[in-house]
């Protein structure tokens, strides 16, 4: 008769391999935001193209909108930028840019070169609003509903997959409510 106890190490090994296998597909850089389901932090910042005027969270009440954190110095922003430009052409959802820790002149030049998908960009010169939103890398994108609640956060560049499977279905659903 085979000693059943001999299978215990094998069992432990298989469980361990299972954990490690799942771990292969996790991204430790994606830290779940505690802000999902919470009201978007209040801000009121100068507009990039019209420094005399401001835009803030209250101005967007009643609309479903995207807040995209970007900077001219940000390399991965270039990755998602064409997608944002496409999205803005479809005019389904307003995109507000948060120009994060950037020179306004450099930011404007960057938009000139790469296309401006934003209804408006606001200037977060010292990154204080970024901290309020829990931004720890650029780009990051927040989906905010009509009541001003954060519903989704994309960490890192928006991908076609994230846009089609997560962001757009959620936008449509939130726009109906």
């Amino acid at each position, binding site marked *: 008769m085979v000693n059943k106890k001999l299978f215990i190490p094998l069992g432990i090994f298989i469980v361990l391999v299972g954990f490690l296998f799942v771990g292969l597909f996790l991204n430790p850089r994606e830290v779940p*935001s505690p*802000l999902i389901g919470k009201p978007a932090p209040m801000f009121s910042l100068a507009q990039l193209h019209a420094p005399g005027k401001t835009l803030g969270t209250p101005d967007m009440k009643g609309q479903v909108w995207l807040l995209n954190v970007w900077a001219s110095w940000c390399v991965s922003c270039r990755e998602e930028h064409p997608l944002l430009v496409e999205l803005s052409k479809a005019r389904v959802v307003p995109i507000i840019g948060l120009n994060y*820790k950037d020179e306004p002149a450099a930011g404007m030049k960057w938009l000139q070169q790469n296309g401006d998908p934003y209804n408006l960009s606001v200037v977060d010169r010292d990154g204080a609003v970024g*901290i309020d939103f829990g931004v*720890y*890398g650029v780009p990051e994108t927040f989906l905010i509903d009509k009541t001003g609640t954060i519903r989704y956060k994309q960490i890192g560049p928006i991908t076609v997959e994230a846009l089609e499977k997560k962001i757009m279905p959620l936008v449509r659903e939130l726009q109906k409510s």
Partner: protein
Amino acid sequence: MTRIACLPVTLAFAALVALTSISGAYAADAVPTEKDPVAAERAVKLGEKLRCLVCQNQTIGESNAELAVDLRRQVREQIAAGKTDADIIDYMVKRYGDFVLYQPPVKATTLLLWGGPGLLLLIGAFTLFRIVRARRRVADDLPLTAEERERAARLLAGEPGNNIK
């Protein structure tokens, strides 16, 4: 043989200790000294408790990533504004979640993390206890053969010609 094998491990350990103490020194350097030494001390202490989310295995005190610099500034500003340590930690957790804490809080989701090592120790102790007990039973139960009995008697009597030198 064993001693030689141990040497690289010892060296590696010594290097690790040296490195850790160096990074500790940097942590103090990274926060500019302020006029108020108590506040500066508090800022350093808090910086050691908060994780930098960019270089995730460093505290904001150790890291020189831009975010860490910003968060250190936040900590100092809030200390200057008269906030308590608990207020500042709460401020960070609200924005970045529990992950920002270098020492995770004990709650339902972290129970396995905190209890896991203890649980493994208990399982190990229990297994060891069972193995030892089973072995003792085997040793007690096996009767000696006549030859073994004779040899045991000879050993006990201390007669010459046995195996003990």
